[in-house]
């Protein structure tokens, strides 16, 4: 089998932890923003739409740099979070999760928004006539019907978070055991002589993880579809 060194295992475990935390924290925001974009009209909606999608089109280094100057320890938001909540992002794995969550966010919002737009609003009216107030309509009808889109968004965000490199390395650097993910370790290994074998092992792992995420999403989507449509 794969003979990983402890340092490589650390990077794999760290990557998974960062991707899971990033995706889990992004999900509530993804549902709220997706709902706002799908269902409401307000002044500045196109601006919000643009901001959400910015990380997808900007160079990742730019996103990382912006995070650095806003969320660094001495930066305005970073200093506030540190002194009031004890949350530190800079050069910590939490900062990597923040960067990965933001980079994956546009990929999460899009399918959720599309799923919410595709829901037959008449079913929500039917739920209202049966006595469900708006929060209950959302929980019992809207969310379950949007589930395939939510699953797709979660998988895309997770995959993006797992592979994120540019924003992460710019924001939280490449510290073994703290912020060194699979991607940044591969990068490091390709910069040193004789690192090719180790890099190759990690590349293989990255491919396996990506495949596993794809298969899991297919399986979940099929299960959701069977539940809804009996097909």
């Amino acid at each position: 089998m794969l003979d990983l060194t402890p340092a490589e295992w650390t990077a794999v475990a760290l990557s998974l932890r960062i991707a899971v935390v990033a995706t889990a924290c992004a999900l509530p925001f993804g549902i709220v923003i997706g709902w706002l974009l799908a269902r409401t009209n307000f002044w500045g909606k196109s601006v919000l739409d643009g901001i959400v999608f910015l990380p997808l089109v900007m160079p990742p280094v730019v996103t990382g740099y912006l995070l650095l100057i806003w969320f660094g320890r001495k930066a305005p938001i970073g200093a506030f979070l540190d002194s009031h909540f004890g949350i530190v992002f800079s050069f910590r794995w939490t900062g990597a999760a923040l960067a990965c969550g933001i980079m994956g966010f546009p990929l999460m919002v899009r399918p959720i928004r599309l799923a919410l737009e595709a829901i037959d609003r008449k079913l929500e009216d039917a739920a209202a006539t049966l006595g469900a107030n708006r929060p209950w309509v959302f929980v019992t009808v809207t969310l379950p019907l949007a589930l395939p889109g939510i699953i797709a968004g979660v998988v895309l965000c997770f995959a993006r978070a797992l592979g994120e490199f540019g924003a992460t390395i710019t924001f939280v650097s490449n510290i073994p055991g703290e912020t060194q993910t699979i991607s940044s370790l591969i990068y490091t290994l390709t910069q040193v002589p004789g690192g090719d074998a180790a890099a190759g092992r990690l590349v293989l792992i990255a491919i396996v993880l990506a495949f596993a995420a794809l298969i899991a999403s297919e399986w979940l989507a099929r299960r959701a579809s069977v539940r809804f449509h009996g097909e």
Partner: protein
Amino acid sequence: MIVLAVDVEKQLGALKLAVRFDAARGVTALFGPSGAGKTSVVNMIAGLLTPDRGSIAIDDTVLFDAARTIDVPPHRRRIGYVFQEGRLFPHLSVRQNLDYGRRMSGAPREAAEFERIVGLLDIDHLLDRRPRMLSGGERQRVAVGRALLMGPRLLLLDEPLASLDAAHKREILPYLVRLRDDAGIPMVYVSHTAAEVRRIATTVVRLDAGRVVAAGGLDLLNDADIDGLD
């Protein structure tokens, strides 16, 4: 005794809707050609559409009054609504669909009432199926059961047979007649088919181009009305 008092106005595109009628116990048919505004009227009674002016009251409870800015939201009106296309929740089983209204109101489970309505509509063998697996007629029976099991004070049926073929129409009508005779819940029945109205209604309110053109007994229907049951 008057159960439902409707007096509403609304501008709907080119159609100016101005409808006023009272309904007593039994089945009141809103009868008229497509585009007369029948569905808009029941949507207003259910609270899904807001009138520009007027008022709606059930049993002395005001549900809507533009002058007094009263507008009870649909989930607090306790009006059962059977939609033309059923609108069963695709992600829930038939049993969960039937239970939905009771769960939302937090009322205790009443097994006897559940059995009675499920028996009345002959849907006990469908309880564990998904709506996708039902025929059109079965789907509408479940939709009627779902609306009944929320314990409504009024039942709205918007062309419940329109999406069915002739055979399924004949299959469902007896259930609706039984419902009228057994359940004792006042109903407003929307239809453009005279034969249906003749079978089920006790009172007829005739609509055309957004206005009530006549109201009274079944004798309002004349031979010129199209008979679409077969």
